């Protein structure tokens, strides 16, 4: 059925980004033409676009009675104009296309002073019948200041060459910064319970925010994860600000109580462009790669494609590295404790949520907290310092699911939190799937029933 269009739809995607509003002509059964502005024409695939359905109006009546329509779109930088012949197919009110459009529309509405007025009722899906390049004066295209294909190539090579998860994350963030000129980025992993994401690496923020959590469905990142689709916003909008989204979700459900709230999410106070791309291992959602910028319209369709390509490599690599880390050599049973000095420090663990405090300072909770507590107990009561991923996996106290990516990611999280918050305990990798706990001061462990009163 797909007929080849004389101009490929993906060649004019820049015209479908809501920068210059499109116009849509329809016709009533009695032959009366109608023309209206459309906030958003969204590229779905090479044969389909989706138009934002915001109001019940004549356009709506017309396309339901007579599905033929014609859109006029413009290139935002060159003013090049195209007429797109369309055939209305259906309206979607949920799902990836709807959520992508809803997020983008929130940015457009905010930028043009229409927040609260523009509300997406549906994504009207149209088949593209033809594309006509309308003659007229066009400005020269701006020379590209980066080549995304070349960047993807180098990023992919670096990702594939990474020897462990920590270096993989660094490779991605380095690549985004040096090759794609993206200076604010974070990587989040889907938590074991599947209801939230936690930050495992970030770049470009005063506080790394490693360990911070966001519920599925909250903000750009949470929606991208829930809908398993990239979400891209080209202007500043409060509606999808993750800090606000997280706050809004608080108190709404049981998850709020369990969510990591002690560690603030990193992020720009006023991102003008945001792009969140899911990371998959096969068909399973593993996490989200998120980038943002203080510039309007910083990320286009090409940037989205580039990040999707990199995220695909990352997903495959995460799976391979996690597998490899499970097949480690046994830990060295003879490695003993190293000498400690200084005043004794009390480390508390609250059983209800596995939150751990070093002295009075909160460190971590949840799975990473449980891991840390197991390590400390083995250190204090059995004088052990060398550990393997494998033994953590089978330890019933840690309650890890069979799926393996998270163990390595949780260890990275613990390692980074210690590096940021504690100057006498650290975790050192000693080989594939093996690591050492280094403690520099005498410690006393205290278990507390219930939750920390904070």
């Amino acid at each position, binding site marked *: 059925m797909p007929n080849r269009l004389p101009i490929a739809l993906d060649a004019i995607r820049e015209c479908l980004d809501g920068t210059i509003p499109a116009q849509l*002509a329809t016709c009533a059964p009695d032959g009366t033409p109608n023309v*209206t*502005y459309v906030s958003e024409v969204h590229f779905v695939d090479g044969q389909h676009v989706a138009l934002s359905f915001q*109001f019940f109006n004549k356009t709506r009546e017309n396309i339901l009675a007579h599905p033929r329509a014609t859109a*006029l779109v413009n290139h935002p930088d060159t003013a090049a104009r195209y007429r797109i012949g369309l055939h209305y197919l259906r309206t979607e009110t949920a799902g990836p296309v709807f959520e992508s459009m809803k997020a983008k529309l929130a940015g457009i509405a905010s930028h043009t002073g229409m927040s609260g007025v523009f509300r997406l009722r549906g994504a009207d899906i149209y088949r593209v019948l033809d594309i006509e390049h309308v*003659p*007229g004066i066009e400005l020269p295209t701006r020379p590209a200041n980066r080549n995304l294909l070349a960047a993807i190539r180098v990023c992919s090579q670096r990702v594939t060459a990474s020897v462990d998860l920590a270096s993989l994350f660094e490779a991605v963030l380095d690549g985004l910064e040096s090759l794609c000129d993206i200076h604010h980025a974070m990587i989040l992993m889907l938590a074991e319970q599947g209801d939230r994401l936690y930050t495992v690496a970030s770049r470009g923020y005063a506080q790394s925010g490693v360990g911070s959590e966001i519920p599925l469905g909250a903000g750009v990142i949470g929606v991208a994860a829930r809908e398993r689709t990239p979400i891209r916003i080209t202007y500043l909008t409060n509606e999808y600000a993750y800090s606000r989204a997280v706050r809004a979700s608080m108190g709404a459900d049981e998850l709020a109580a369990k969510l990591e709230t002690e560690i603030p999410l990193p992020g720009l106070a006023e991102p003008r462009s945001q792009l969140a791309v899911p990371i998959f291992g096969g068909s399973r959602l593993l996490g989200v790669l998120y980038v943002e910028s203080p510039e309007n319209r910083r990320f286009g369709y090409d940037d989205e494609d580039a990040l999707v390509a990199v995220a695909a490599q990352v997903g495959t690599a995460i799976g391979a590295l996690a597998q490899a880390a499970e097949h480690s050599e046994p830990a060295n049973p003879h490695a003993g404790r190293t000498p400690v000095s200084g005043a004794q420090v009390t480390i508390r663990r609250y059983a209800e949520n596995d939150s751990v405090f070093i002295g009075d300072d909160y460190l971590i909770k949840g799975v990473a907290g449980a891991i840390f507590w197991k390590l400390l107990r083995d250190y204090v009561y059995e004088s052990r310092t060398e550990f393997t991923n494998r033994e953590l996996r089978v330890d019933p106290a840690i309650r890890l699911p069979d799926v393996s990516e998270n163990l390595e990611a949780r260890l990275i999280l613990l390692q980074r939190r210690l590096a940021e918050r504690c100057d006498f305990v650290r975790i050192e990798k000693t080989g594939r799937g093996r690591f050492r706990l280094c403690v520099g001061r005498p410690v006393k462990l205290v278990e507390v029933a219930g939750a920390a009163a904070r």
Partner: protein
Amino acid sequence: MDMALPVLDEAHAAFIVSGVSIVVAARDAHNAPTVVRAVGCRVSADRRRVTVFVPRPQAAALLDDVRANRELAAVFCQPSTHRTIQLKTRDAAFAALEPDDLALIAAETDLFVADIQKLEYPGEVARALVAHAPDDLTGIAFTPHAAFAQTPGPRAGEPLGA
């Protein structure tokens, strides 16, 4: 009919010549619609006649349709405020440009560019949207028989003056 009030009141007549974004649509014998951007607009002194100006090379199908059935819809939108109205007619016909039309179009273009710049959008792109060779222009004159508010919001779609 002639004694009826014009569809456009003074405010709306002034609005559509104030450098707004103008787009017109027509349809063929199979009710397939077509659409083109107009570069300017004139309203007669009695507000009964509206003339929009379109570059012929961009509007081949639309001009054929107007010639064939005289149906036309025209939408006028101020980008910075989203204020929008739509006019409908069944008597659209070609009209030659009058001597001062080019000056009128140039003045409307300047206002259009200035308005779009309020949205932090580059003026040169706005200017390119309505750029044209003067010899390419044709007028399409019509008597609107209906006018609708189309500003996004609860009153969108209501007849003007309702």
